[in-house]
């Protein structure tokens, strides 16, 4: 009996010392993610969890260039209609199955065919997926589509375990099985998501954290309090107004980047009669006048403490596709007044200004309202709950609408769906056949320089009459404790944990 006790004590002490050596990284998220199924998922916060859970065929680097992940290379045929992917050999999925060409074929076909798949539209250019050999996949496209590889660097490129996905069907997201650095352990809705280090990960030598716990904490102040009190090691979307406090705390570090998306104001130029007969529907000079009345740098200072990057296009001035011929304009109230005069509108121009509820959007709206008033606009702010605002926007019941876009790696993702006639995000209902043709041509071309030249053709009209005033590109603000080493922030705002260490 005594020996048994001694043995148990020994075991217990061995267990506790092993537990002590384990490193846990606790991350505070702004929202509770939706379902963790790459095919059905749709939230930004969900992508943050996926970055640790599900590897993709490709990834991006700091310069927003595509780099290999599960696929080593891609080759597009001369006619642009065949893409051959070479896969990384010897990669294991979390259930021990092999991540091979069959798994890639299964995952892509699942994205394409599953009912209510949100990936379908992203990769609908794929006509057929063929297995050439265990590490080679051939994608036959309906038409050349250069943004495809960028799509495969996001959820559409995530490879799931065919075995697990077949067994669980549309419940796969309750216990996802992928090929990322961490595997799924448990989830308590709105409480926590727990992932453990995957021992057979293809890049396991660069994973130094044993356990990751994601905790949704909606209040930014409370998220920061948790970080300061040692309850979390990293938080996402810290407030710009908290930057000073974070910098002043010797135990905290900031990691910021400019986002891939933008903050803008959508103007109703043709959505329903309300839009067509509204202030922006009749004459594009009213849109130009409103833009001239806005001081982007001042907005940046007020709303983002100067941490955002003022911009005037769908991609930031740092992006390789930015059209330098159309620089960010300075505020010019006289010009704005003149434009309104030329347009022959009665002053003040009354605008139904729909603002989704949020501290930064409300602040933004108030500053824009004040600036626009000087030029002759009467912006009537209507604060609306977000879900309701989407419906109002769709039905065209607004004149101006504050709407942000989270951004995509390929410029196509920031413009096509907003400016093409049938684009699902085209709330403004801007529609020009020549713009549609040009945007389609940019999708078919593959050389970046060629594509940039094509985009130049739509820029002038899009900026002058496209129904969106791009204001600035928001900062991605991540804060972490000094216990974390090696954390790097990328512009997509996701949290990548390879190479990150938690110091004792």
């Amino acid at each position, binding site marked *: 009996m005594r020996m048994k006790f001694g043995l148990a004590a020994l075991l217990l002490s061995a267990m506790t010392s092993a537990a002590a050596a384990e490193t846990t990284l606790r991350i505070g998220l702004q929202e509770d993610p939706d379902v963790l199924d790459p095919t059905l998922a*749709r939230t930004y916060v969900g992508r943050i969890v996926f970055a640790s859970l599900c590897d993709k065929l490709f990834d991006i680097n700091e310069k927003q260039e595509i780099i290999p992940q599960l696929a080593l290379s891609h080759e597009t045929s001369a006619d642009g209609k065949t893409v051959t992917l070479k896969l990384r050999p010897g990669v294991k999925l979390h259930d021990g199955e092999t991540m091979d060409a069959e798994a890639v074929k299964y995952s892509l076909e699942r994205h394409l065919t599953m009912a209510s798949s949100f990936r379908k539209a992203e990769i609908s250019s794929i006509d057929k997926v063929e297995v050439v050999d265990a590490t080679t996949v051939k994608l036959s496209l309906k038409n050349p589509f250069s943004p495809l590889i960028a799509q495969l660097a996001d959820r559409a490129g995530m490879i799931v375990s065919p075995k697990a996905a077949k067994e669980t069907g549309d419940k796969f997201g309750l216990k996802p099985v992928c090929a990322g650095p961490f595997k799924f352990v448990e989830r308590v*809705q709105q*409480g926590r998501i727990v992932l453990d280090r995957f021992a057979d990960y293809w890049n396991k030598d660069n994973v130094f954290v044993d356990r990751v716990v994601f905790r949704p904490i909606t209040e930014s102040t409370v998220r920061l309090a948790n970080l300061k009190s040692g309850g979390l090691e990293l938080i996402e979307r810290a407030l710009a107004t908290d930057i000073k406090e974070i910098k002043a705390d010797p135990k905290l570090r900031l990691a910021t980047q400019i986002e891939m998306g933008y903050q803008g104001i959508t103007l109703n130029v043709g959505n329903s009669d309300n839009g067509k007969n509204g202030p922006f529907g009749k004459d594009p000079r009213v849109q130009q006048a409103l833009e001239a009345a806005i001081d982007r740098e001042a907005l940046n200072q007020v709303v983002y403490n100067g941490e955002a990057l003022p911009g005037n296009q769908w991609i930031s001035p740092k992006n390789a596709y930015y059209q330098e011929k159309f620089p960010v304009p300075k505020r010019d109230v006289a010009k704005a007044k003149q434009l309104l005069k030329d347009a022959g509108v009665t002053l003040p121009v009354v605008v139904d200004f729909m603002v989704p509820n949020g501290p930064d959007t409300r602040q933004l709206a108030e500053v824009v309202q004040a600036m626009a008033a000087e030029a002759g606009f009467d912006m009537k702010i209507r604060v609306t709950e977000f879900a309701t605002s989407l419906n109002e926007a769709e039905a065209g019941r607004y004149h101006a609408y504050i709407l942000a876009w989270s951004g995509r790696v390929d410029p196509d993702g920031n413009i096509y769906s907003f400016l093409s006639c049938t684009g699902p995000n085209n709330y403004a209902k801007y529609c020009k056949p020549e713009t549609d043709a040009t945007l389609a041509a940019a999708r078919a071309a593959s050389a970046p320089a060629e594509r940039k030249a094509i985009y130049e053709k739509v820029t002038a009209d899009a900026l002058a009459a496209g129904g969106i005033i791009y204001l600035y590109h928001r900062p991605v603000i991540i804060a972490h404790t000094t216990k974390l080493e090696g954390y790097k922030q990328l512009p997509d705002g996701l949290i990548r944990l390879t190479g990150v260490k938690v110091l004792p």
Partner: protein
Amino acid sequence: MTAFLARRLAQILPTLLLVSVIIFLLQQLLPGDPATVLAGEERDPEVIAQIRKQYHLDQSLPVQYLYWIKGVVTGDLGESMRLKEPVSKLVAQKFPVTLQLALMAVVISLGIGITAGVVSAVYKNTIVDYAVNIVALWGISTPNFWLGIMLISLFSVHLGWLPASGYVSPFEDFWLSMKTTIMPAFVLGNAFAAVLMRHTRSAMLQAMAADYVRTARAKGLSERVVIAKHAMRNALTPVVTLGALELGTLLSGAVLTEQVFSIPGFGKLIVDSVFNRDYAVVQGVTLITATTYILLNLLADVAYVLINPRLRG
């Protein structure tokens, strides 16, 4: 008694049916389309149509209601659109959390409220009474939200005594569970303690002026016995009823407090579901809460009848 019970039970069914219709219709009053919200930035019209079909959102309202109520009757509360989890599972996951928080809050508020009420009644119109009243007024008028954040910054950030937020089940780690729930329970209990204090005070004052208290004093009992045994016992009946009612309210979820402390209970579930237009969850949770209320009400009625036979007629 049997007839009374049968009559009350017979009333419950139509009440529940009416409640289910009201819950369903109120939900429909919310502007915003669940399929559009679910789609978020990925606004593929084909997928949105598919979601509408899958969740019968393309059907007329009566048909949608029938689909839902048919499930409810067979014990299926539906599935969360956003999380793909059965609503019954979510309810089972959240209920113990909210129950723990509510019980702790009620215990805290009864403890503070009754003590303060008795003290201020006994020391009526003295400095003690005024001080207690001022504190109570402060308690009623302090917003939960603000108090929560202040407590976090004091006890978690500055002193480092308590975790800033989150929840741990008492079955997992009892002490950690107490540590994570004590602040939110205090915040919740605080405002109610003030209400209880005011009620206790006036009930006590009434009792202290009653004939039986004078008799007790005349018998030569010590003041302590008079207060504790005679006045307080009588004064507390309405106060305890109030506490039980409050427990019912707290069970439906303490929205703001759960939000501030990131506690995964009913309140947070409802808020997230309303914002995401996750109809099945909102309907399921509301229906469960309403049913609990109705049942508690029935139990109270039965208890009254047992105590007071005059109500049996």
